[in-house]
């Protein structure tokens, strides 16, 4: 089933009904009719898609496509100008606390505190989610062990490599046990091995823990044939569905050529 076929509680239900419409079929993330402008410049135009629980959805677009704006809207950093965004049925504008509780985020720029230790960074994040000190410490130790940094717990973040920092950011995003994970260009600036490690770690989270993942990227080789795909170009959504559907729609052999074909068609259609 394509992610777009999943029921969109936010789109179809009234605001009062949103919090009550949680069923097994509720999408992890539903985006409905979202548009956003910076003054006169339109950064996003009528975006519609959903991310199902336990699925990996790649959000593919070049720099400037609107991926990060979309992330800022999903995480409530920006106010929504039009449309609706729901996290497991909770409208991000009306019930941000409930929505954000279920969401872990890895932003494109590094947001770790470089002068604090790995453990201190994780404990700070846990406190921001109201997790008590003892519980937070045990979760942090578990997370550090899982990402192979248990022995660096007391080191300053500043001393980590780029790949280790990213792993720590992912561990931090998972500390409060979210059901939806958003990653914005999480592999930018990393070497091939670090990229591959992080990608396989995230895919493991989908299969083993049932987390819904939205993975924003501009790198075609990060997309697998089993993934769901949303193509964003100049603020418009050009395609959505599983990869094979997108390939057949674009009449292309691979994601790279599908992207080129779709964005080329888009550019032509914008030309007067």
């Amino acid at each position, binding site marked *: 089933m394509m992610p777009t076929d999943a029921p969109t509680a936010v789109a179809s239900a009234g605001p009062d009904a949103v919090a009550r419409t*949680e069923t097994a079929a509720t999408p992890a993330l539903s985006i409905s009719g979202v548009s956003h402008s910076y003054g006169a410049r339109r950064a996003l135009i009528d975006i519609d898609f959903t991310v199902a629980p336990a699925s990996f959805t790649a959000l593919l677009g070049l720099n400037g496509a609107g991926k*990060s704006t979309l992330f800022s809207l999903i995480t409530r950093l*920006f106010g929504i100008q039009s449309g609706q965004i729901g996290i497991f049925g909770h409208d991000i504008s009306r019930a941000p606390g409930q929505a954000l509780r279920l969401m872990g985020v890895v932003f494109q720029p590094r947001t770790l505190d470089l*002068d604090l230790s790995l453990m201190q960074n994780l404990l700070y994040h846990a406190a921001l989610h109201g997790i008590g000190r003892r519980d937070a410490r045990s979760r942090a130790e578990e997370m550090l062990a899982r990402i192979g940094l248990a022995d660096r717990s007391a080191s300053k973040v500043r001393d980590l490599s780029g790949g280790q920092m990213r792993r720590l950011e992912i561990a931090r995003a998972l500390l409060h046990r979210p059901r939806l994970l958003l990653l914005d260009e999480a592999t930018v600036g990393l070497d091939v091995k670090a990229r591959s490690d992080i990608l396989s770690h995230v895919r493991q989270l989908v299969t083993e823990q049932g987390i819904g993942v939205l993975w924003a990227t501009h790198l075609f080789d990060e997309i697998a044939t089993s993934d769901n795909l949303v193509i964003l170009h100049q603020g418009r959504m050009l395609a959505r569905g599983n990869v094979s559907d997108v390939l057949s729609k674009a009449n292309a052999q691979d994601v790279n050529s599908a992207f080129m074909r779709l964005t080329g068609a888009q550019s032509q259609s914008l030309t007067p």
Partner: protein
Amino acid sequence: MSSTTVDGKQSGFSFSEYMTCLNGIVWREALRFLHQRERFISALVRPLVWLFIFAAGFRQVLGISIIPPYETYILYEVYIAPGLMAMIQLFNGMQSSLSMVYDREMGNMRTLLVSPLPRGYLLFCKLLAGTAVSLLQVYAFLAIAWFWDITPPAIGYLTVLPALILSGLMLGSLGMLISSGIKQLENFAGVMNFVIFPMFFASSALYPLWRVQEGSPMLYYVCQWNPFTHAVELIRFAFYGQVNWISLAVVGGCTLAFMIGAIFAYDPSRGLARRGPAGGET
């Protein structure tokens, strides 16, 4: 509102979750301050330079008559000590807001703002954390100043604490309010010149208001309208175990107004939108 989420958690937040969040933000701010030794040292050196050099030089020029809360003639150093305590908080408040602009531009504020707790509460915690850091600085200053004959009644070290918390919150809120109107980090230096120095010099921090009135009645009225003057007087009286009710009312009112203004005016998209939400990306 108590609907149940998919993972079975209640939708609201418990008191202990609010307190855990507050503790975490204050703890992180204190750790950052202690790790930044240069910031700690410069925060101490600034008032000490005023105390050791400026006050020593002006001791003979500026006579201080007996004015409340003092019950006898005092040294000029003793007079300016409360003003220097307030100055530490003024600089700290502005520095905190500067760091908020920086964090907003660099992305660190996102970690705070994607917390599920209400945004107004998170910003309030951030203000309290900045105030806690200013208290560390003020008490470190007082410990050194004790060797310089700044010796209030022992109870004064305790009674001044609520005054310092209130004035710290007022100045931190003012800083946050100013930072919410700043589009980019580069603009902050100008704001420092237009806010910190006028506020400090047009106040009772360095000279009593009756002296100002003798020199310039106009400046006297400016000083009286300056909330920083009232922060200084609130601290001065509290340092000697007394309450200046007018200053308390002014500082309390200004704290509330600045805080509400700062929380409403804070817009995380301001810095992000200018550079693109992810540092150039849109």
